[in-house]
């Protein structure tokens, strides 16, 4: 057992750091630090910077643009990316639909879609959840009926993140209503410009514009947009669930936020001295750091195990541990960050869409503290809620 990285791994880490330092515009970094939303233009530009370097999707197969890094290097890369912080490439493309196309798509699909994901020429969104199918995803009802060379799709998706910018949506649709519910589902790629698709925004409680409803009415989808085989979509979706393990805990992101909390707590005052000198506050912060350290080690164990024995790609209860603890820590840090602001957490800075153009009151860095806290409640809800993750561990690990 050895905690330390090798010399080569440390050199690699330094190279990654230097690249972020030299290539990410400071304005984008500042937005990330403050918890402000990054617009599509910044996203696209940064994605292209990463891709040009060959780092757009490290975990992909090399022939499609992956780096061939072992799990340890992938881990280091992601950690540094989150810690800097730099924007993570849009997960819907790089981490969700990309690996599915790479694994189950046909040659034409791979050749067409994968390069466009790497450059963010195609912005993807995820059309899984429906009003009646959240945790119980397999009960989804959006249906697709074969009509010659097309599928005709009817139904509704919801909570679709950033669908307002999306060029494409990957959907789970029901193609066989008579089969057992997991067996009748198909994985379809749908062009968002197809007639019959309507995107309606859902404003989140923090005032954010990140989720949407997507209505599909007689949408004609070419049969060639089917991924893999008809009625096997559930298997492909499950393959995804176990696929992204190193990113899920967001250890680097929480480290970055903790550093930020320390920095700002030195600038805010309590009882006439810097808040960071207040024992109660300091101890609370350190308690979260301890939890995070444990999670980091847990994550390193998973990574090291994958590096030695290879990751099977099957859903794995380790992901559930990382997801539960990772989300709880993210939520704890956003709450601490809000606490730093004291009374200055209260002023609300509206969205630009609402015609808001005034500066925030109090320190600038306070503006997004409360909204980030509110918004981060989502991390224990999406991607399989923490209750569902606990169910998985109870069943798969504990045998209950």
């Amino acid at each position, binding site marked *: 057992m050895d905690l330390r990285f090798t010399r080569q791994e440390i050199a690699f880490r330094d190279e990654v750091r230097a690249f972020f330092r030299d290539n990410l515009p400071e304005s984008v970094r500042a937005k990330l630090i403050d918890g402000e939303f990054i617009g599509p233009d910044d996203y696209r530009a940064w994605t292209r910077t990463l891709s040009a370097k060959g780092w757009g999707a490290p975990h992909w197969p090399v022939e499609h643009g992956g780096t061939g890094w072992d799990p340890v290097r992938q881990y280091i890369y992601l950690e540094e990316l989150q810690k800097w912080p730099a924007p993570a490439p849009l997960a819907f493309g790089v981490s969700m639909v990309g690996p599915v196309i790479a694994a189950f798509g046909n040659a034409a699909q791979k050749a067409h879609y994968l390069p466009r994901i790497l450059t963010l020429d195609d912005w993807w969104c995820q059309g899984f*959840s429906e009003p*009646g199918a*959240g*945790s*119980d995803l397999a*009960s989804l009802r959006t249906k697709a009926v074969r009509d010659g060379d097309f599928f005709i799709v009817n139904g509704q998706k*919801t*909570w679709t993140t950033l669908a307002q910018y999306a060029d494409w949506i990957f959907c789970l649709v029901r193609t066989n209503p008579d089969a057992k519910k997991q067996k009748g589902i198909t994985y379809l790629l749908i062009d968002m410009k197809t007639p019959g698709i309507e995107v309606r925004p*859902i*404003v*989140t*409680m923090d*005032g954010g514009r990140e*989720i949407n409803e997507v209505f599909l009415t007689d949408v004609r989808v070419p049969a060639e947009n089917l991924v893999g085989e008809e009625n096997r979509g559930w298997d492909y979706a499950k393959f995804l669930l176990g696929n992204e393990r190193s990113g899920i805990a967001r250890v680097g992101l929480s480290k970055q936020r903790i550093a930020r909390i320390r920095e700002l707590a030195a600038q*805010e*005052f*309590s*009882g*006439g001295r810097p*808040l960071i000198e*207040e024992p*109660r*506050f300091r101890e*609370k912060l350190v308690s979260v750091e301890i939890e995070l350290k444990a999670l980091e080690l847990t994550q390193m164990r998973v990574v090291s195990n994958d590096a030695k024995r290879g990751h099977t790609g099957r859903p794995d209860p380790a992901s559930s541990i990382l997801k539960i603890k990772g989300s709880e820590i993210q*939520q704890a840090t956003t*709450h601490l960050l*809000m*606490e730093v602001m*004291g*009374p*200055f*957490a*209260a*002023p*609300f800075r*509206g969205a630009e869409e609402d015609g808001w153009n*005034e500066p925030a*009151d*109090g320190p600038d860095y306070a503006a997004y503290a*409360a*909204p980030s*806290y*509110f*918004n981060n*409640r*989502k991390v*224990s*809800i*999406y991607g399989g*809620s*923490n*209750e569902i993750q*606990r*169910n998985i561990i109870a069943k798969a690990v504990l045998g209950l």
Partner: protein
Amino acid sequence: MDFDFSDEQTLLKDQLDRLLADRYGFEERKRAMASPEGFSAEMWARYAEMGLMALPFAEDDGGIGGGPVETMIVAEAFGRVLALEPWMTTVITGGGFVRLAGSAAQRAALIPEIASGALKLAFAHTERHSRFDLNIVESTAKRDGGGWLLSGHKSVVHDGASADKFFVTARTAGSRRDAGGIGVFLVDAHAPGVTRRGYPTQDGRRAAELSLDNVAIDAEAVFGDSENGLSLVHAVVDQTIAALCAEAVGVMEAMQKLTVDYLKVRKQFGMPIGAFQALQHRAVDMFTATEQSRSMAYLAAMMADDDEATERAKSLHAAKAEIGRNGRAVGESAIQLHGGVGMTAEYAVGAYFKRMTMIDVAFGDSDHHVGRLAEMGGLF
């Protein structure tokens, strides 16, 4: 020992609950929020008609003579519907200064105006580095003939966007952290030298930044001892905290009920999600936390006007700390148990969660009050 409401108190509660149930649905609230004032002027008038503005003032002063229990009843009812009107800042905080420190002339001038709903008040205390400390005051008041000149900047003045007058803390002597040398002054929003900028807060209410540049105040606008106003500020803030605790209980109760209702109707895996024991237990914890908070709101109400300042302060620190913690737990569970729906601006539970969060941030978060209580040697 008696935790029952009197007949009059029950009547007040029923009357107000009925009014709010009829007129203060979540959609009506949204409309009020979007209005220029940011609250419902119509409801404001109704409250005045009902006597809510006159509630805590002595009958001799033209008030109704209600005590902290009446205040609690009203604040809790407002919490249940997330009422936006500046009742607490006007009647409890602003009115508190008038009640506790107003001379006969000041009371005669102000109470009828408050009681009729004509006058809206706000409390301008917070400064850039004061955080939750009431003794940290950098704004200054300098003697000027028979009156005063006030200068300084006050931040996050709740309900300050619509207030007609502000109770302002300013330093008449000493340095910025001294307990002595703090005075309380009533400043007209339109007085020369006053600049205010209103803005919305996270919970859909309004606040303001207030700049004072040599604002001339006459001697009648001083409340209490201009050299030694801190104990007055503490007394008024304690009464406000008691009211906020009651409001928080209303907010928690609403979240808890919304969640239980949702658990019964939302179906996943072919059954109501309320059938899952993991969620049942969480709902029970929400219920328990709400009841524990209610107990502390009672304590706060019963101690709010206690003459023994130390015992009063200890009880209020304890109440605010417990309610802040419980409120966070109830709010976070409420969102979690609603799943995606809980994250939306459209659905009420998020609005309650945000208000609860802002109540914790107002007049000291739970850490602050735990710290104060620890410094005072604890409760038992």
